[in-house]
Structure formats: structure tokens, C-alpha cells
């Protein structure tokens, strides 16, 4: 988040610099919105020509003189976020409950953790492992895959998840799938 914000800031600064330098380029097509952090935080806004909605006047209007702003932020490398103590506590309970065989309680703990930190791949790792222990292979694999989707950039987590997927596939009899997953895990 911080990095994306940084990126945006850089983009904004760039735009303002170009604007100040008086470099005027053609306005072919559209003008991207530009954040203005000097005023009260208005956003350059063109009212859609076709739209007949309420005209809202932004607080500060600054003409953008360039087309080069990338308005849609480009993702930056994911920084591994510190886990919330609440999530750590819930994952600890889930692990204990899973080990003692109380799967329902473990699942409840994981659900609670998921509501607090729905993007934490660790939660999906344990959930997938729970399903594996229950022998519910397809759901185990899908949960682990969901974990890999959220773990992008976190190589340690990705390796663990792919090893788990390899295990799950092996157990369900999908040998070639397991091999693939193992190779994938080794690539990290």
C-alpha cells in the first residue's frame, strides 16, 4: 500500500512538473484524473459527455497537460505484512484444534481469522491442510491455490503452499499433478 501510494505520488509529482514546465501536448481522447495533494484533495474530473447526471464540482481543478499519467496503478512487489496478533491467536487455536481432531472448531477458528485478514495466505494454507486431513482433496487443492494467489511475492509461503498441493495431489492419486507442484515448489 505504502509503495503504491509512493508510486502515485511520483506520478503526481511527474505530472505537476510537466505541467509547470509548460509542456503542452495534444489531448487526443481523454484526460486522466490527477490527484492534487496541494489543495483539499480534489480530483480532476471531466463530466462524461453522454452522462446527464448531477454535475459535481471538484474542490480544486488543475488542468492536466499530459496524457502520460498511468492512472491505473501498476502493482508493486508484495511486501509480506506482519500478522495481526488476533490472527496469530486464531491460527494457533486452529492448529491445536486440528491436531486434536476437533475439525469443526478448527474450521470456526479459521473462518474467524479469514474475516479479520481475508488476504492472509497462511489461513488458506491451514484450511487446505484441514481439508486434506478430512480427505476432501478437490477442496483442499482449491484452498491452497487460493493461498498461492494471495501469496504472490512471498516465496517462502509459495513454496510451502506448492509442497502442500503436491501432497494433496499425491494423496488423491494425481501423480503427475503432484510432480508438477513439487517442481513448482522447487522453483522458489
Amino acid at each position: 500500500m505504502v509503495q503504491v501510494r509512493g508510486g502515485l505520488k511520483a506520478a503526481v509529482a511527474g505530472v505537476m512538473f510537466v505541467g509547470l514546465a509548460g509542456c503542452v501536448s495534444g489531448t487526443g481522447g481523454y484526460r486522466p484524473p490527477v490527484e492534487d495533494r496541494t489543495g483539499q484533495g480534489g480530483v480532476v474530473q471531466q463530466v462524461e459527455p453522454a452522462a446527464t447526471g448531477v454535475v459535481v464540482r471538484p474542490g480544486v481543478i488543475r488542468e492536466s497537460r499530459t496524457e502520460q499519467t498511468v492512472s491505473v496503478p501498476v502493482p508493486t512487489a508484495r511486501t509480506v505484512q506482519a500478522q495481526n496478533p488476533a490472527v496469530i491467536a486464531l491460527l494457533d487455536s486452529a492448529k491445536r484444534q486440528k491436531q486434536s481432531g476437533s475439525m469443526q472448531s478448527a474450521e470456526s477458528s479459521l473462518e474467524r481469522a479469514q474475516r479479520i485478514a481475508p488476504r492472509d495466505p497462511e489461513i488458506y494454507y491451514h484450511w487446505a491442510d484441514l481439508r486434506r486431513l478430512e480427505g476432501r482433496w478437490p477442496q483442499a487443492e482449491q484452498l491452497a491455490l487460493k493461498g498461492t494467489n494471495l501469496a504472490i511475492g512471498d516465496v517462502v509461503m509459495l513454496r510451502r503452499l506448492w509442497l502442500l498441493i503436491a501432497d494433496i495431489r499425491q494423496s488423491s492419486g494425481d501423480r503427475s499433478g503432484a510432480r508438477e507442484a513439487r517442481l513448482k515448489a522447487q522453483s522458489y
Partner: protein
Amino acid sequence: MAKKRAPKSSSRGQRSKKPRSFLKKFLILLFKLSLLGLVIGGIGLIYLDVQVTTKFEGKRWALPAKVYARPLELYPGQVLDRAAFKQELKGLGYRFVNQANKPGMVEWASSRARVYTRGFSFPDGDEPAKRMLISFSGNRVASIQGSNGQSVPLSRLEPILIGGIYPQDNEDRDLIRLDQAPEALLEALIQIEDRDYYDHFGVSPKGIARAMWVNIKAGRFVQGGSTLTQQLIKNFYLTSERTLARKLMEIPMAVLLDLHYSKEEILEAYLNEVYLGQAGSRAVHGFGLASQYYFAQPIHELKLHQVALLAGMVKGPSYYDPRRHPERATARRNLVLKVLQEQGVISMKQRLSAEKQSLGVVKQRSLHKGAYPAYLDLVKRQLREEYPEEVLNSEGLRVFTSLDPMVQANSEQALSRTITTLQKRYGKPVSELQGGIVVTDPQTGEVLALVGGKQTRYQGFNRALDARRPIGSLVKPAVYLAGLEQGYTLATILDDQPISVSLSDGSSWVPQNFDRVSHGKVPFYLALAKSYNQSTAQLGMSVGLDKVIDLLERLGVERTPKPYPSLLLGAESMSPFEIAKVYQTIAANGFRAPMRAIRLVTDIEGEELSRYPFKVKQVVSAENMHLIQYALQAVTREGTGRYIYNRLPAALNVAGKTGTSNDQRDSWFAGFAGDRMAVVWLGLDNNGKLPFTGSGGALRVWTELMVKERPHSFMATQPEGIEYHWIEEQTGLLSAEQCQGVRQLPFIIGTAPQEYAECADDRQNNSLDWFKRWFR
């Protein structure tokens, strides 16, 4: 009677013999008759006895299922709006005091709150009552300390009860045990309703005599002289008709009940049976529920003045209704207090201080129970798939849902405020403007809020579930995804040119752009961002309708759409809830999860009956999902959804799509931030035309909702198979950062264009020269 008569008859009978034999016969007949009467009476009594005992010992009441909102989790680091937190505590009936020394109390200060929770028995474990000091920093929970200073990582409040599933007679009650009832309540009931309760045998001759005396003195019927036992019999066993037979049955039954059961058992049943008011169509029975209905507090937390009011209301719940007739209710309450003091139950000081209190009844509008008919409708529909109606309305099931009252309140306000604004602007054509909203958490798939119409407390047409309307451009992400899966890239140049498709009935389909202008060559991502119809139709026809339908189904559409070309521009009708499934999957990076309103159902003891677990299935590759999410962010940054950034901070990433149906009859917006996905529909129930598009209407509601929600930013992660390149927009060719008219676009590795644009060629050479010079 026969005996008394006998001597008289015999004295008369001395005159002749004939009458004597008649008399004898008569006596025998009388004897036989009374014997028969005794037998019949006996059988009747046995019958009544069986009646009395079976009902009392069996399941006494049909207990409606209780439906709860999500419990509010509390943990350090949590984003929690303090005003919303206060609302939550008020909804739970917490009292704001100077010293929170009992459960259900809060000390509220500017940056901290000491909360003494009541505790709750959750299906996954008990949450004990505890005293916590919650410190805020801004709109975050900074720390939570337990009663002896230790830090608490996680705790949760009791869940707010949002409704029930009632039987035909609409009787509702919260069962309480005798020991939960405040002592003062029992005393007040006995002093007011039945002073000899502990001494009589079910009926009280003394009480009847006293009532008669009062009635004679007053010259009219004032007191009934019914004991609590008789009142219980009347409500519990007998119908409400006032017939002689009923009156005659009441007394023996009261005696039988008294004979079989202890005074305590009978009193407990009375506390739960007695009728205490009417909440719309729902009949409020028992003190447990009445306490919640009038004070939003559990019965054992009630104070003397509240207890006195409830006890006084037994005599006439609608006559003494404290909401409608506060003066009558106050007078009645003070009378009860007076009697209690006169009988020595309370002191004069207690009486005077209780009399000074206001009635303390909460506004009916502030009650959460019955406040969410649309959400409850969804819950009931899901429950009915699994449970028979009689189980739902009589077994006292506990249903835990994911409704978030804070999100629900924000959604309702966003809808009603925006509708008011639009009505002011557009006047009569939108005087009947309606809407529907579905809000979910994209990662969990839980339904957080559901708004079924403008009048949110009115249980009417549930537009969020039942208003099936053409979805317009909301369908386009599926068309473009199908394109991406067929090898298109975000930079592929599409042709926004007129297109004509011949239909099987001989007619042709000739889609128009909204502004009636063809835009010529447009890059793929921009055609979606600007919602151009002709390029979309061109794309969809070349990709194939079957591919688009397949994608819609994978994303979550359950009813297979018909393969008409008009499908490509959203002729298909769907409810907000149905289309929400599609956007839910897009928001969750292509992992489809069921949209769940119910978390868990337990029986009355808390045993788990059914669980609705989180399930996922990846239906679109992470790479293609990343591309479509880029384009949907372009919608809100540069396209038809730009209005959003008039109100939301630029640092907050959101993505979504506007939708307007043919002839502008429906205004849609579906979009998501990091932790909120919401679909909004605006339209008229009579399907009339609207003076605004998706961006002029539904988008405004959506934005208003997100302004209030302050959601997390949507963070796209870059899958391994994705790389970003600078692209010249007009040509879709590779370019360089320094060139004009370029932007960075994501591509699946190996799909980026190979050719360089003119500018990039020069730049590349220049920069290479520069690079070479540097290392020379």
C-alpha cells in the same frame, strides 16, 4: 339440593301414596343422574387433568428460530469507526454510565471506552463476560486491556438479534428462567395481580370476594379476581373466546394445575406466557421478550422503575403502551410503585427515586429486531431449502448470519440519500424511484448487507433478490474476459464500427453506441472502460456467444442465458443478487465462492446442525483476471465510472462497471474495493424510463456507500505470468516511457506486441547510445 328438597316433598307426600312412589322413583333417578354426573364429571376431570399435564410437561411453546447478526470482533489494529461502535453497543442495549461495574455497561470517553460485556455462548465456544478497556487512535483500535491490565488479542461482543421466524399465530417470545427475573418483578406481579398467590389453591375465593367488593364500590367492573394461575390457564390452554364453557373449565383446570405443580413452576410459565404488546404483526409474549422490546436490555439488567412498568402493563398492554400512551403508562407504573411501597416491598426512598425516572423505553425504530426484512428474507429462503417450516418456527433454532449492521446502515443511508438527491434534481419522473443493493466481502463471499427497496423496514418487494432487470453493460467484463481467453490483449485494437447481425427471425441486430458515435480504432481496455457498444459487439461476435455464456456460467450465473447477440450488451435480466455473484468472483481474483448469508445453524442447546462453509473454485486464470481487473480500474479512473474520484481519495483503488439497460430503464453499478463488493440497481417498479444512466444514478449510490464505508484499497498483485510494457495507445505497439500517448499495460508473458512504435524506435536507439556512452 336433592336432599334439601326431600323432606319438603315427603311432608307433601303424606297426603297420598301415589306421589310417594313417584317421589321414590324421582329420587332414584336423581341419584342415578348424579352418579352419572359424577362419572362424567370424573371423566371430564381426568380429561382436563391429562390436558393440563401433557401441555405443561411437553414442549410448552413453539419457539421461533432466532436470527443473529455477525458478532462484532474486537482486536488491536482493527479499523473501527467509533460512532458505529457506539451504535453497536446501543443496539445491544448497553447503558452508558460513569462506572461500568456490571455486564451491559460502558464508560465512554473521547479516545477510550471501558466495556463490560455480557458474554455469549457461541457455537464454537463461550465468550465469557469481561471488562475491557478499549483505546482508540483515530479510527483504529490501538489496544485492548483486560480487567487486570493484560492485553487482549481478540474478543467479541454478543451478536445483535435481528429477527425470528414466527409460527402462524405470530407469537414471539424469549424464554427466561424464574431465577433470571428480577425479584422486584415477581413481587410487583404478585402484589398487583394476585396477592394470595402463594396461599391459594389455584383459585382464590378471597381474591374473588375482594374483587367483587371493589366492583360494587366502583359500580362497574374493575377487577376480575383471576389468580395468576387462572390467567395462565386462560392464555395457555383456552381459546380467547369468552364463553361460559370456557369460564367453567378455567376454575377446575387452575385447581388441577396448582395441584400438580409448584408455585415456582407455574409462575415461571406465567412469566413466559403473558401477552405484553404488539410489534406490528408480531405478538410480544413473556417478560424476556418484553424487556428487549421496550428497553433493548436483558430482563435481569432491568431497574425497579422498568420492572414496575412491565408488571403494570399486564393489565392492558395496548392501553398502557408506553410508546403510544406514555402518561397512562407512567401513572400505571407509579401506581405499581406505590403498592410495592405500601406493602413494604420497597422503601419510600426507592419509590420516590423510581418515580422520578423517565419511562426509559427505547424508540421502536432503534430496535434491530425486525429492522432488516430484506436480509432476513434471504436468510429464510436459504433456510427453507434445508429445514421444514415447523422446525424453523417452533424448535428455537439459532441462526448465525453474516449481516453487518454497520454496513447495512451505510447501505440504507446511501440509497435513501441518493434517491432524495436524484428526486430533487429530476422531479416527478423519478418520484417513485426504487433501488436494491447487495454488499459482500469479496474474499469470504459473505453477504454483509442487503437493501430491498427505499423503505428498508417495510417487508415488501425485495428488489435485491427479485427485481430481475436487463443488466446492460454489466455483462461486458464477461465478453472481454472471453476475448482475453481467446488471445486478445488489453492493447489489441478493436474496431468501434457499426455492426449488423442477422437474426434467425429475419431481422437484424444493429447496436448503437450510447452517444450515437462510432469511435473507430480503440484499444481493448479502453473500449471496456468507456463502455463502447459497437466494439463490444464486434468483439463478442468474433469470440462467439457460446464462449461468453460459458464465462458467465463460470463466473457464477446459474440460469443459462439464451444465445442471442443482444446478450453481448446485457439484454439478459438478472437480479442484483444474481449479478453480484459474477462481480464477487471477479473481485476475488477468479475464485468463485458461494455467496453466504448464513454461517451456522444450531439447535436450542447450541449443538451445530448445519454449517455453510467457505468453498472456492478457481474459474478464471490469475493472469486473465489481472488483465480484466486492470480494465475495470480504468473504468473508475478514466472511463464511465470516473465520478467516483470526485468523492473518494485517489489513493483508494476501486474497480467496477456501470450499466444502463436499453431505453435507460435501469441504472446499474457493480464494483469493488479491497474488502467490499457492492452491486447497486436503481429503477422504477413500473419499468419506466429514467432520466439518468448507470453513472448518473447507481454509481452515485455506490460512491456514497464507499465514502461511508472507507474500505481497504483494492490491491492487485502481479501474477508470475504477467509483465508490464509501455504501449502507444493509438497503435497498440510497444513504446517507451518517454514517448507521448503511452501507458503501461499488463500482458501475459509472450503476448505483448513485438513491433515498436516509431517514437520508441528512436528513443530506444538514443537511449542505447546514451547507455553505451556511459560505459565507454
